[in-house]
């Protein structure tokens, strides 16, 4: 049974999600990956405003392919999240509520998620063509010089993700594998 989340993603909505839940997201989210994260955190450290309001929103770790004619955005699957671990806690501490990526997170990120009632979602890595169909509008709002790494504002509709780590710190990478191995014995 899929749950539906309509942005903004408040703490109240975040608290209801549990690791393993399938979720469809609708509304405005932002993209950022390695280079953009570095710049965002440099702004925070200088006390300067970010190019977007991150409160109650989600960042999708993605560097999309260029749009073909007729597409809002090209293929857009998640990139591996651990490279953003050095930056994520600072963004969570200023109100970022969700992150969409794939792969493991550091204990520091998970602590920051628990502290700020935030959720880490996994989208299917390598399924960029499929996920692109759920992106209805895309616009570069910062760092166009970074090309695919620029920050995009996306309007998504029923964007499919799975709760990997919930706001209590439960982790599907641990429970999913354990459940499979237990069932096999």
């Amino acid at each position, binding site marked *: 049974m899929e749950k539906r989340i309509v942005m903004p993603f408040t703490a109240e909505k975040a608290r209801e999600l549990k690791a393993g839940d399938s979720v469809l997201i609708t509304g405005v989210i932002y993209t950022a990956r390695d280079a953009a994260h570095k710049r965002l955190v440099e702004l925070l450290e200088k006390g300067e405003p970010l190019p977007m309001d991150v409160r109650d929103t989600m960042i999708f770790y993605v560097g999309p*392919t260029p749009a073909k004619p007729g597409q809002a955005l090209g*293929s857009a*699957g998640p990139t591996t999240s651990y490279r953003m671990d050095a930056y994520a806690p600072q963004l969570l501490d200023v109100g970022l509520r969700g992150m969409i990526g794939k*792969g493991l997170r550091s204990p520091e990120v998970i602590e920051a998620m628990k502290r700020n009632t935030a959720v880490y979602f996994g989208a*299917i890595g*390598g399924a960029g063509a499929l996920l692109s169909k759920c992106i209805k509008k895309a616009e570069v709002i910062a760092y166009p010089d970074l090309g*695919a790494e620029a920050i995009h504002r996306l309007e998504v509709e029923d964007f499919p993700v799975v709760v990997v780590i919930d706001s209590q710190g439960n982790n599907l*990478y641990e429970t999913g594998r354990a459940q*499979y191995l237990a069932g*096999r014995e």
Partner: protein
Amino acid sequence: MREIQAQQITQTIRQLCIDANCHLAGDVKEQIKQCRSCETFPVAQGILDKIIENYEIADTNVVPICQDTGVACVFIEMGQDVHVNGSLEEAINEGVRQGYQDGYLRKSVVADPLNRVNTKDNTPAMIYYDIVPGDQFKITVAPKGFGSENMSQIKMLKPSDGLQGVKDFILKVVRDAGPNPCPPIVVGVGVGGTFDKAATMAKRALLRPVDSHNPNPFYAELEDEMLTLVNALGIGPQGFGGKTTALGVNIEYFPTHIAGLPVAVNINCHVTRHKSAEL
């Protein structure tokens, strides 16, 4: 002496870049379907269905299967009786430039690993040359994503570590990688040679059809055994648990020094891409 025009090489590479990124190779598709039919864990079945739906959308709409359209690894098998009119290296890079531009592929290469400014045309390609007898000219383009490349490892084992040491290292690399490289993965292994030779063999092992075997029966058996051991880890598609952690394990080997046992493991994702053409 057979003559080949540089422009012909450029055009072929342009097309191979687009084809490899938008149309998953038949052997990989078949293996994903085969694994889907053997998968018993419901979550994993659902993920594999989405992975199949994804490559079908890419086929139909001619869009990249994955947004990480990779660095262009280009393998050239050139007969020693062939002469290329023009610069071979420039012809290859021009093909990559055109393919990544015209195919709406992502430009993922930075000019300098520390200063990190994007070259904006996905060049330079990573080029591997083989000079072979005859007058053939074969090109293989294998775009390589870095989610999986980053999970690869190499180790200089001791001869006394032996077969068990090699097996343990392969399993360690897959376990360390966990959900990061977009499982189900393809595992390329190079055993022997030197430090760099082992790594290159591991990369070349990924070019072989995923369901193929090393012609040496000892290594063929090791491939089957390692696939079984890897899939017993339970990591599963996307790391959410399941039987299908890997689609295949391909192993290459080469003579080595009396003091050494190099082993390299190059991980690839379920979007393992390779397309070839002969001129």
